[in-house]
């Protein structure tokens, strides 16, 4: 499959994520949108990694593997982020009985 398809898909995913983060006020949805953006990046990494590997297989058998490694790192980070973020959201819900991020502006005062 041509690399362009992967690129377009990941741009679409990333934009959906951005719009979601900007427009939605529910913290959980915002979270999901952030995950969407991360995975858009993951998708691109894997696609490019595969492309490089195919192109340089003859001269370098391990070409492009580092892109795939990055994906694992991003997944780990994302998992950690989710666990912390969800914990925050749970705490927030306990305190204000809402997951609306605009409630958080009260931290300012």
């Amino acid at each position, binding site marked *: 499959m041509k690399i362009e398809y992967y690129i377009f898909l990941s741009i679409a995913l990333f934009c959906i994520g951005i719009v979601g*983060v*900007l427009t939605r006020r529910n913290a959980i949805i915002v979270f999901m949108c952030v995950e969407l953006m991360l995975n858009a990046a993951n998708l691109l990494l894997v696609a490019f990694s595969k492309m490089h590997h195919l192109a340089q297989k003859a001269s370098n058998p391990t070409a492009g593997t580092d892109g795939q490694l990055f994906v694992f790192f991003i997944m780990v980070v994302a998992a950690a982020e989710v666990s912390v973020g969800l914990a925050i959201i749970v705490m927030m819900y306990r305190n204000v009985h809402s997951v609306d991020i*605009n409630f958080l502006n*009260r931290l*300012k005062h």
Partner: protein
Amino acid sequence: MSKLVYLVPLLPFIGFLVNGLFRNKLSKSLTGIIGSGVILGSFIISLLIFFEVKQESFRPVIVSLFDFINAGKLSIAFSFQVDQLSSLFLLIITGVGFLIHVYSIAYMHEERNDHFARYFSYLNLFVFSMLLLVLGGNYVIMFIGWEGVGLCSYLLIGYWFKNTEYNNAAKKAFIMNRIGDLGFLLAVFWMIAQFGSVNFADVFEAAPTTSVAVLTGITLLLFVGATGKSAQIPLYTWLPDAMAGPTPVSALIHAATMVTAGIYMIARSNILYTLAPVSQTVVAVIGLATAIFAASIALKQNDIKKVLAYSTVSQLGYMFLALGVGAYTGAVFHVMTHAFFKALLFLGAGSVIHAMHHEQDIRNMGGLKKYLPVTHLTFLLGCIAIAGIPPFSGFFSKDEILAASFSSNIIYWVIGVLTAGITAFYMFRLYASTFLGKFRGTEEQKHHLHESPVTMTIPLILLAILAVVGGLVGIPAVFMENGHALEHFLAPVFAESNKLKEAHHLDHNTEYLLMGISVAIAVIGIFAAISRFSKKPEALKPAESGIGKLLANKWYVDELYQAIIIKPINTFSKFLNRTIEKNIIDWIVNGIGRLLQYGSRQIRWIQSGQVGSYVLLMVVSILVFFVIQFFF
């Protein structure tokens, strides 16, 4: 012995430190012993050095102590130069200086202990600086001493610092000296640029191959420095005001240290001046103008110390005249004899002031002859010496200068002789109104009149002997072949200059005639003064109008400087303070503050606390970066 030359300035410096640091602990007698003892030590070492230098086989020695400045190609060593000229000055400074120190012990005995020690520490520092000045092996070391004497004169003139007037006199001395020092400093920089060295030896060696214009520039700048330090027109007004200090300090400033610095510097750089005839003429003209100008002011002064101060300015003018006409030996000779009789006269005046309980106005004196016999006799000898009556010391040195100026330009000689006559007149006016006639002070002063203690009279007597016989080291050739021991002694220092100068010898009859005229004029001056002032105190009344009033007010030079220099500067400073400072500088400073406050208030709105708006800003910023990255 000349290897130990560093001890000469070091001893006074130790004296300065000890007296200065332990001033609260030392007793007066101990302070006096330390203060005078270190100078005596220096004197003895100087004497030993002198005898070594005196030997025929002696060659100038340069003692390098350490590197002072080492930058790039320029290397300035902290070095001392021992040769005929510096060893002679060492003797004058430490010898006369020592007598003044001894005299001070009695003169200052009324001061509190710590002030007494402060006085002696300053005095030692003064001698130290002056020794550094004359010993320095290059212009930079000389400059250190040059600045040091300026500082010490400030400290000592303002010694009684509770008196505002005295403080002002001290400041005046310091500032006027600074103006001159700037010229000196510029000359040193120019030398570094031109010769790449400030060592005397290097500079003098390179001088003959340098263009005359450059040498003229350098020598004129050096001379600006000399006018400040040696009180020549236009920077002389500090010296009469310097009388605010204690009298022995005046003696030290006027006789042994400070004012002779300019003469020494030019005598040391004689080759530069000989190669720059324009500068020589400037030096001669300024010296001559100062000589007659200051002498005319001295005619009408009624303060015993002021008369002596103006006479110093006038005599320094003579020395510059000598330097200007190329009679370097004559100038140094006159420095020496002047040191003797001027120190004597100042110390004598101090003795009078001491006896009169700080009365300095000669209108309130008179008839002190029978109360102060020793002071009277020594003072009289000093007056005769300065008036130039043979065979006293002043005669020989003054005559040498006049003879040299005669063969250079007859106008110089005419004015010089006229000045000599005026000098004789005002010195004997001073003498007659102080010691002759009837006592004009109060009854109480009369009751307390007493001869000064022995520590004061012994220096007077010693100086009087020197003032009488000091001239015999320079007997002119007309009286005795090879009689001029000083010229013979100093010949190596001025050898290069003498080679360049065309030899001129007055025939003996002319020389006798010149001597005869100058002595006759001096004698006329003396008798005119004595007959006029010894019996008639009303002759001292200030003149109401005309030239007398002009002279009594010192030609209004101070007022002139006040009007054309100080006032405009003050007005300008006020303008800067009120207009520029308040309206422009303050406005800029406050404006920056206000701008920042306003700006911060505007930027504060961005921090809304809305998560959405933060994220939006983030995205917008990233987009902006992308746009910049791709399209610009």
